[in-house]
C-alpha cells in the first residue's frame, strides 16, 4: 500500500512562451504509515508534486504515472483516490463556505449518502481529532478565529477518513501555540490511526522533530531523500540550494569548530540533551 510516482514530469502552460517545467522525472514511493516532510525553497515544485498525489494535476501526457494503493489515477478512479488521499492546502480556511461549522465539515460526506447518525459520528470524530470544541458546531464559520477556522477546514478533509494526508504548510500564519497543536495533531494521527502524513514545511526544527523521512526538492527534482539525520547532515548541499538546517544543529556545528570532539549529529533538542550527556561522560565537557 503506497503512493507511487513513476517518471513523473509536469510542465505548466506547455507550448506557450510561459512554458515551465515544474517537475522533472520524479520517481518516488510513499509507503503507508510514514511521516514524510517535503522541503525546498519557494517555487521548487513541492506543491506541484503533492497535487499529483490525488490527481489534481496530471503528469504530462505519455510521461509517467501515479499509482495509489495499486490503482492508477484515471478519470474513473479519481473519486476513490481523492477519498484515500486528503489534501489540505495552504491557508485552507479560505475554502470554508457553509452556514455552520458542522455543515462545512460534513460537506465531503454528503456525496457518500451516509445515515444521519453515521454522518454526525464522523463529523464529531474529525472535530475531536483537530481539537475543535463541540460547542462551536452551530456557529457560523465566519465568526471563528483564524486558528479555529483552520481546524474546521482540516476537519473537513479528515472526515473523509483519508489513509494519506498531505498538509501544505499547515502552521503558516498561526501563533506558536496553534502551530504546535497542528503538528502534534499530525503526529497523533500518524501514530494512532496509522495515517500516512506528507508535510510541506519551511521550518526545519519542525521537520527534524516530527518527520521520519525528509525529501528535499530543488528546481523540480528530488535531490535528497532519507532520514532527517541523513538529510540534515548534508548541510553544505542544503546551503547551496538556500535551505536552512535546524538552529540547534548550527549551534553544535559552531561548537565543533571550538572543539573537534563535539558530536555534531544533533538535530532536535532531545538529540542535544543526549549529546551533551554523552560528552559529559566522555569528559569532553564539564557541567
Amino acid at each position, binding site marked *: 500500500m503506497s503512493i507511487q510516482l513513476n517518471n513523473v514530469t509536469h510542465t505548466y502552460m506547455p507550448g506557450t512562451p510561459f512554458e515551465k517545467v515544474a517537475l522533472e522525472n520524479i520517481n518516488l514511493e510513499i509507503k503507508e504509515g510514514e511521516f514524510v516532510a517535503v522541503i525546498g525553497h519557494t517555487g521548487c515544485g513541492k506543491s506541484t508534486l503533492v*497535487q499529483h498525489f*490525488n490527481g*489534481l494535476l496530471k503528469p504530462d501526457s505519455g510521461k509517467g504515472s501515479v499509482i495509489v494503493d495499486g490503482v492508477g489515477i484515471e478519470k474513473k478512479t479519481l*473519486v476513490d483516490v*481523492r*477519498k484515500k488521499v*486528503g*489534501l*489540505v*492546502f495552504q491557508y*485552507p480556511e*479560505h*475554502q*470554508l*463556505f457553509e452556514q455552520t461549522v458542522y455543515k462545512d465539515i460534513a*460537506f*465531503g*460526506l*454528503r*456525496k457518500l449518502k451516509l445515515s444521519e447518525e453515521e454522518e454526525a459520528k464522523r463529523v464529531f470524530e474529525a472535530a475531536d481529532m483537530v481539537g475543535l470544541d463541540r460547542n462551536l458546531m452551530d456557529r457560523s464559520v*465566519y465568526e471563528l478565529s483564524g486558528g479555529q477556522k483552520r481546524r474546521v477546514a482540516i476537519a*473537513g*478533509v479528515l472526515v*473523509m477518513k483519508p489513509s494519506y494526508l498531505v498538509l501544505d504548510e499547515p502552521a503558516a500564519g498561526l501563533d506558536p501555540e496553534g502551530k504546535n497543536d497542528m503538528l502534534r495533531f499530525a503526529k497523533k494521527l500518524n501514530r494512532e490511526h496509522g495515517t500516512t502524513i506528507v508535510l510541506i514545511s519551511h521550518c526545519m526544527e519542525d521537520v527534524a522533530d516530527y518527520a521520519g523521512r525528509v525529501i528535499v526538492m530543488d528546481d523540480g527534482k528530488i535531490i535528497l531523500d532519507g532520514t532527517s539525520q541523513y538529510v540534515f547532515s548534508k548541510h553544505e548541499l542544503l546551503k547551496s540550494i538556500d535551505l536552512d538546517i535546524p538552529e540547534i544543529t548550527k549551534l553544535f556545528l559552531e561548537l565543533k569548530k571550538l572543539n573537534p570532539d563535539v558530536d555534531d549529529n544533533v538535530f532536535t533538542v532531545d538529540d542535544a540533551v543526549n549529546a551533551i550527556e554523552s560528552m559529559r561522560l566522555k569528559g569532553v565537557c564539564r557541567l
Partner: protein
Amino acid sequence: MVLILIVNNIWGYVLASVFVLGSLAVSKIPPKMIVKSLKPMVVFIIFTVFFNLLFFQGDELILKLGFVKIYLEGIIFSAKMIVRIILLVSSATLLTFTTTSVNITDGLESLMRPLEKIKVPVHDIAMMMSIALRFIPTFAEETDKIMKAQASRGADFETGNIFTRIKSYVPLLVPLVVGAFKRAEDMATAMESRCYRGGEGRTKFRVLTFGKSDLVILIGTVLFTAAIILLNVFL
C-alpha cells in the same frame, strides 16, 4: 472596433480589413499570437455561421435538403459575419497587446476629462477600471485554488445535470466572493494609509504626452471613420 459593427457593404469591409491588417503589420505582433487569440472564437464562428445558413431567408435557393433551405444571401451574410468577427477580435488583440492596462485607463481618464464639467467622477471611474483589470489574474488564481481545495474534499464540478452543476458551484462562489470583499477592504485600507483621497490635486507618475505618432493615428482614425461613413451612406 465600433466602426466595424456599422459597416454594411463590401467596400466597407475591404477598407476595414486593410486598416486592421495594416495596423497589425505596423504593430510587430507575431502573427502566431494573433492566430492564437482567434482560436477560442472558432466555435463561436461555426455556431454563428451554422445558424445564419439555416435560418437566413432570401430569394435565391441554392440547396434544399428536407426542411433545410440554404439561400445565396445566407452564404454571403455568413461570410460577412466571419470577416466581421475576425476583424473585431484581431483589433481588440491589437489594443491589448500594444497597450498596457494602465495606459488604457490613463488614456480614458484624460479623454473623459471634459466630462468633469458636468460632474462625472472621471478619476474614480478610471481608478475603478484599473483596479478591476489589475485583479482579474488574481481572481483567476484564487478560483483555481479554491476549486482544487473543494475537489480534494469531494466536490464534483463536472457531472450531473444542469441544476446539480449550478448547485455544485456554491462551494466555489461563496469563498470567492468573501475573499473578494476582504481583499477590497484591505485594498481600501492600504490606499487610505498612503493618503489616497481621490483624484483632486493628484499628480501622475507617468505623464501621457501627445506626440507625433498620436497625431498621425488621430488623423488616420478620423479619415478612416469618415471613409466608412461615406461608404455606408453612398454605396
